[in-house]
């Protein structure tokens, strides 16, 4: 047994796992497929791998309904699946308070760049992130200790900048106050109240999932979701994997799964071959990206890459057994152990909406300085429009400078325009085909939290009406999965937001206010 392993207990059975793994990764490696039992009695396992979907909830050390993908394993930890035990132990920790000139919410590339620039400008900058360390989804700190090159450079610069980082901290509420922005957060069950002069929202994006028959089966993951689980310590070695979705993420994920020893059977891109070629031929303008794409492709060169192909259904019993694919005229099935599927990205705009920032076409409106319509609130990265890591870093730099009261860097603004054009080309190339909006049958579950089936929701209803009549979107993911799907399939508008913007311990809401003198 190597030093890197620790013992925990899963449903009272001892299990040795890698010390840096998340609980979700450890459970997957132990062969657990039923993390929880759904409302309708189905076994459920992680989908998103990044804290959004709440499918991976388990009871950890007597605290019920915890996200196993956001929790690192610890020696002696007791995990219970498929039940919701709440030990009769009250929380007694007092809330913590903090103050910063600039608070950056989200520790991905945009947040890291913003925090670095703000701190380098002499401000007290505080970077808050839900993950185990700064990096976000793209620059995630890996369970094996490796860090991407670009990430390493920025994280090193962040560490030198004097910015303070708070990991495993979830922001649940933002409110304008007389002196700036009041932030309520929770870390490891403890309430934190932070007063900030300015805020940079760098909340990133999540994957868009579209419901199809069988998508709720264990071992159906997101594409970035599988990558996140892999980086959190889960092993896909020897697993037969189908990747079916859309966007530039398919190739790198296929490459890293293949490199980890997985048997990638097929990569299916829903957009047409012509679109992919048009997009790829535009890559010569950025040689580094072209080289990257070629490297990814060669990493799994024995795998078929099919364009104009998408998932029609998944089937199985207590877990996924096969996937049915289609290219329109034809349908065929592939036996597999894992399906990775997602259809592009959805910006995480919840906090911006909560604060009342202006949005247009689903993204936060910002000016040249990344300032939103609310004074003292800046936004950078995917919430201002899906644009990828390079654009996110640039926007983060601009937002960090602006939040610190520095003047705008004209060079950065020019480079941002170029990157925005690339993002538009990406959007056009990977636009979703209309067939994808009609994959769900009446019997397909749309809302995985409440097990609401597609046929239960009438098209003429408003979202609020559908919620009240069917419970759709009323679960712990607060509609992040089904809402984004229905936005795409039936054109539902984004919902309004209320605190808490994600599930939080009751004690955090009950005590968070003792720390501040005046608020409403």
């Amino acid at each position, binding site marked *: 047994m190597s030093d890197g392993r620790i013992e925990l207990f899963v449903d009272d059975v001892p299990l040795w796992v890698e010390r840096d793994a998340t609980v979700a990764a450890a459970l997957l490696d132990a062969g657990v497929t039923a993390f929880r039992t759904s*409302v309708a009695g189905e076994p459920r396992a992680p989908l998103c791998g990044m804290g959004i979907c709440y499918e991976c*909830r388990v009871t950890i050390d*007597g*605290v*019920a*309904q*915890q996200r196993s993908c956001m929790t690192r394993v610890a020696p002696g930890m007791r995990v219970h699946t498929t039940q*919701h035990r*709440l*030990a*009769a*132990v*009250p*929380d007694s920790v007092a809330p913590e308070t903090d103050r910063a000139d600039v608070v950056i919410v989200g520790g991905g590339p945009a947040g890291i760049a913003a925090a670095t620039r703000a701190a380098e400008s002499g401000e007290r900058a505080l970077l808050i992130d839900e993950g185990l360390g700064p990096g976000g989804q793209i620059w995630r700190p890996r369970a094996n200790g490796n860090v991407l090159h670009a990430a390493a450079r920025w994280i090193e610069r962040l560490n030198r900048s004097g910015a303070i980082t708070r990991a495993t901290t979830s922001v649940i*509420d933002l*409110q304008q106050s007389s002196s700036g922005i009041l932030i*309520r957060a929770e870390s490891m*069950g403890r309430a934190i109240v932070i007063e900030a002069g300015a805020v940079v929202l760098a909340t990133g994006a999540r994957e868009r999932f579209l419901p199809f028959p069988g998508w709720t089966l264990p071992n159906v993951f997101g594409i970035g979701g599988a990558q996140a689980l892999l980086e959190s310590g889960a092993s896909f070695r020897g697993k037969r994997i189908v990747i079916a979705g859309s966007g530039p993420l398919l190739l790198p994920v296929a490459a890293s799964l293949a490199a980890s020893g997985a048997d990638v059977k097929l990569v299916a891109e829903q957009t047409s071959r012509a679109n992919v070629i048009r997009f790829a031929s535009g890559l010569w303008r950025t040689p580094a990206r072209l080289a990257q794409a070629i490297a990814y492709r060669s990493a799994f060169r024995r795998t078929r890459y099919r364009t104009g192909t998408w998932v029609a259904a998944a089937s199985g019993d207590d877990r996924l057994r096969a996937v049915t694919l289609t290219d329109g005229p034809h349908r065929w099935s592939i036996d597999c152990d894992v399906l990775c599927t997602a259809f592009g990205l959805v910006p995480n705009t919840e906090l911006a909406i909560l604060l009342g920032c202006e949005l247009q076409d689903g993204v936060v409106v910002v000016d040249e300085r990344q300032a939103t319509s609310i004074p003292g609130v800046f936004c950078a990265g995917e919430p201002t429009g899906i644009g990828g890591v390079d654009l996110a870093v640039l926007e983060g730099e601009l937002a960090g400078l602006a939040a610190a009261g520095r003047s705008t860097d004209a060079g950065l603004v020019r480079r941002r325009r170029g990157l925005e054009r690339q993002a538009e080309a990406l959007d056009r190339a990977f636009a979703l085909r209309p067939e994808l909006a009609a994959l769900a049958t009446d019997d397909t579950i749309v809302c995985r939290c409440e097990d609401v089936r597609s046929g239960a929701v009438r098209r003429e*209803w*408003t979202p*609020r*009406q559908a919620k*009240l*009549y069917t419970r759709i979107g*009323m*679960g*712990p993911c*607060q509609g992040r999965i089904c809402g984004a799907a229905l936005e795409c399939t039936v054109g539902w508008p984004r919902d309004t937001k*209320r*605190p*808490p913007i994600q*599930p*939080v*311990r*009751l*004690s955090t*809401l*009950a*005590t*968070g*206010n*003792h720390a501040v003198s005046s*608020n*409403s």
Partner: protein
Amino acid sequence: MTAPRSSDAIVVGAGIVGAACAAALARDGWRVTIVEKTFAASGTTAAGMGHLVVMDDSPEQLALTAYSERLWRELEPELDPRSELDHCGTLWIAEDERQLAALSAKHSAYTAAGINCEIVDDRALAEAEPQLRAGLLGALRVVDDSVVYPPGVALRLIELARGNGARVLEGREVIGLAPNGVQLRDGRLGAEVIINAAGAFAAGLTPGLPIVPRKGHLAITDRLPGFCRHQLVELGYLTSAHVMTSESVAFNVQPRRTGQVLVGSSRELVGWDASINRRILARMLSRATAFLPSLSRAPVVRCWTGFRPATPDSLPLIGRWEPMPGLWIAAGHEGLGITTSLATASLLADRIAGRPTAISCEPFSPMRAMAAEHV
């Protein structure tokens, strides 16, 4: 007025009170049209806790809620799973000797009203609800109190009304009431009988109705099946509900059919500001953990607010609005509209049909505030 077959009645508002009135009138043979400005069960009905409780803030309230619970038992076979009916009962909890003494008085009053209830001592209380903190002195268990999902029940009542020929106009706003008719934003509808069941908005249509919005907060947890078994209410709840102070909180927690725990309650008079008041929310939740310490570790998945249609004397307005021929009021139910919707509908239908009513309607007359002003 004797029940004229096939005459027109209009119910303004498709909340649970309007839905119940529509069901009762349609059953009596009226051609009922429900007019709703947004969609059915979208207002206070959507926001409330959904308790069916007997309350004794006043003898009139006790009579109305007790009568209503009888009607709920009669309706039970007609309810569907969407109604989420749960006969969980209520425990009114005593924290000190004074409250313990008050429990006995409450027990006598309830028993006299024919309500099935019993005093539970401290040990039995701890056994019944192990998550309650130690040191509580006892409780009154009201056996037949229940919990429902209000939008589900309202939709079911509308379905029953439809079964008797009622029609529902959603997304149609009534902008004015006139003798024998209502003015819509886009037209006019005539009817012999008009019922203003617009809840917290009723006073906007019938100026002079003493109804103000009384804001409340609620929080709901993730699923924690078996966390508590009864609706739990502190005996001090009635004080919180009764006094029309600017703000108050009280411990009131419900187990939901889903396994979730619904946590209330707060009361504020702040007009129509629907935003979450973080300070009140924190006070309300602290009050809950003072009784249920381990609830502090429960994940809260959502918080929201709603507006109770409150009246100065905490009694609803049920009856004829004399200044306007043909107009009847069924509004102002504050936090008891789910419970008392059925009694309201029954009393109103009986009055309209000229039948004797099961309990006296006098205390609920919408004219009482006007009368009081002119004393």
